[in-house]
């Protein structure tokens, strides 16, 4: 085991921290000095002086820039039984996140300046993690007419990412208009790619498992056809497309092709699609029910390769909390979705680092720097741990290893597909602009 991450306050009420002997992005050891919310110095270990700051002995823990999630369902307003901004941001902090993008499928939907500002304010009050609202593309997520994208962009919430996530903007003309319209304020359309007619009643990946289980299939083509169309539309109008939760090998190929053309296409993959496969549906336990569905081992391999070579820009959790009663049902009646904030870094560790596909600098790029850029976040998120940068960072113990226990999660919901799995790593501490949100693996306040 490396350091406990336990902090020893030498001067209560001080504004700064001295983090001793952390491995910056998993590489060189350094002391990190934090003053007034900024990193003011990184020095060879033992060189920096506390000078009244609180000291945290990292003892070789990995220091990464604070993680940024492009795809979080915080459920508030409307489904506070599943998650609140308070509980969701606590879960985010415990997962090492310092910023999350709150998806728009709340009740009411985040389709007006008023709703996105409410979410943004609640996030500020929670204080543990920045909450950047995502705006709906269409009014009421109904797929018929554009929501007031400009009003959301101009609001205090400064919305730049727009998505009808959970519902695909399947109307090609509407998608084209959305892509065009957001160019006026540097926005991006994040598409949940799912051809609706090909996926009516769909429950699991279409293939051997769907046939055997007698569950309606969700074919890869329903994702890939929409991604291909959207890439072409983005090229046609020279706008920015972000592809949510890519789940198939074919999608990776299409995105690779679109990027080779120089088109403005980015993509994300979820932790669960990097680790889990469709066979888990065999017991009909809806904790494995998610949209897009878990796919095959070949898809998982292609997603990992795509994330490693940069075809897929980043990891996004699609953290989708649901109350127990929405999962303790027969498969078809259950809600789609899995929690993910508190396990994401550990899953990426298992799927990408332990397999040798990414080093920790690569993890920092894909879980912090790239999502911050794609999310058009204000300066400060995703920056490297260098003097002058905001002190938003996570300390991670790569040597820890234990079983995932959703009952111990800060999320209000328990629908983690990793329950009972042994995963590597532990988030030991998280700092948001110099404030500790997590210390010793627990919420700091």
């Amino acid at each position, binding site marked *: 085991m490396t350091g406990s991450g336990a902090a020893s306050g030498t001067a209560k009420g001080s504004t700064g921290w001295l983090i001793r002997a952390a491995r910056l992005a998993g590489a060189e050891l350094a002391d990190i000095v934090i003053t007034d919310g900024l990193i003011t110095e990184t020095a060879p270990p033992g060189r920096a002086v506390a000078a009244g700051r609180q000291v945290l002995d990292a003892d070789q823990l990995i220091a990464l820039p604070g993680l940024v999630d492009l795809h979080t369902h915080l459920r508030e307003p409307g489904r506070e039984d599943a998650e609140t901004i308070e509980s969701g941001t606590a879960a985010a902090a415990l997962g090492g996140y310092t910023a999350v993008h709150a998806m728009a499928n709340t009740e009411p939907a985040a389709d007006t300046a008023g709703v996105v500002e409410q979410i943004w304010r609640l996030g500020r009050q929670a204080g543990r993690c920045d909450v950047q609202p995502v705006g709906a593309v269409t009014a009421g997520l109904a797929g018929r007419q554009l929501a007031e994208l400009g009003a959301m962009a101009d609001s205090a919430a400064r919305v730049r990412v727009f998505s009808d996530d959970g519902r695909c903007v399947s109307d090609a003309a509407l998608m084209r208009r959305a892509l065009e319209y957001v160019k006026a304020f540097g926005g991006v359309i994040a598409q949940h790619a799912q051809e609706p007619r090909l996926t009516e009643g769909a429950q699991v990946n279409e*293939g051997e498992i*769907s046939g055997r289980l*007698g*569950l309606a299939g969700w*074919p890869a083509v329903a994702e890939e056809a929409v991604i291909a169309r959207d890439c072409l539309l983005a090229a046609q109008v020279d706008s920015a497309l972000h592809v949510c939760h890519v789940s198939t090998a074919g999608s990776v190929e299409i995105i690779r092709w679109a990027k080779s053309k120089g088109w403005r296409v980015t993509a994300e993959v979820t932790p669960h699609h990097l680790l889990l496969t469709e066979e888990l549906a065999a017991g009909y336990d809806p904790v494995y029910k998610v949209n897009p569905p878990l796919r095959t081992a070949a898809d998982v391999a292609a997603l990992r390769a795509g994330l490693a070579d940069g075809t897929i820009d980043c990891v996004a959790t699609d953290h989708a909390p649901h109350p127990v009663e929405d999962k303790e*049902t027969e498969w078809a009646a259950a809600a789609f979705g899995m929690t993910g904030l508190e396990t994401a870094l550990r899953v990426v560790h298992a799927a990408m680092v332990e397999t040798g596909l990414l080093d920790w600098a690569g993890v920092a790029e894909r879980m912090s720097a790239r999502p911050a850029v794609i999310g058009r976040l204000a300066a400060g998120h995703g920056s490297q741990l260098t003097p002058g940068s905001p002190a938003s960072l996570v300390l991670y113990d790569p040597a820890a290893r234990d079983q995932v226990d959703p009952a111990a999660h800060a999320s209000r919901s328990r629908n983690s597909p990793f329950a009972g799995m042994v995963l590597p790593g532990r988030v030991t501490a998280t700092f948001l602009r110099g404030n500790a949100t997590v210390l010793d693996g627990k919420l700091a306040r």
Partner: protein
Amino acid sequence: MNRHLISAADLSRDDALLVLDTAEELAQLAERPVRKLPTLRGRTVVNLFFEDSTRTRISFEAAAKRLSADVINFSAKGSSVAKGESLKDTALTLEAMGADAVVIRHGASGAPHRLAGWVRGSVVNAGDGTHEHPTQALLDAFTMRRRLGRLDGLRVTIVGDVLHSRVARSNVLLLDTLGAEVTLVAPPTLLPVAVTSWPCTTSYDLSAALPKSDVVMMLRVQQERMTGSYFPSVREYSRRYGLDADRMALLPEHAVVMHPGPMNRGVEIAAEVADSVRSTIVEQVANGVSVRMAVLYLLLGGAEGKQ
């Protein structure tokens, strides 16, 4: 035997033969003046039917009663289920009543799997969504063996909506276990995309398959397929995949025609075929009771059934 019968794949070859042999013995009972055994006296069997299926429910009810079990029929209609009670709460209610076996028919694939996690008694799948219907497969195998004397090497052709058929899934698995050779015949739209991974062969041409068939089993065409663009029209389906007298003539002389019911006469099967001497459709119903008796007997009948 496993504690539950949820999938035909739960049955080993020995298990399946034990069910068929037991059913054969129990069938003798039907010819006696008192058609009742005391075997399951004091045991409770719940028929939990979330879908209307009078035929299957009556078959299980008769089977349980002939073994002297107490039978509780729990129909979703007009019950707490219709008022939004979850499957789990229904299961906990049955558990509190002390059900030794729950026979479940449900519109959702996998509902019996979920139920088995919530009750201590045995769960018998009486049809779940588009997944499986293992006692139907057992009664079909029983009927084939009675008519044709064997199952090993028997050539069985199953025709129709395989994609949505729980009868087809269970039959393919069970018949493979028992050594029969299964061919599925359907329009390509009504076969699962990964059907090549199933232990059977497939064909799009019914007339070509019939001369090589000892058994042909016609599946019901559900009303909702007729409007879902799975085929252009009922007439065209009937012409290409229906069994009429002309097609029946392509069968070897000894071959039998089966149908799990209820039939759409004039769609997948012509009336003169359904009523012909080759048809086993009425026998299948009678055999259903014997086979379901055997299943309940082996799952609940004491130590020898629970090894």
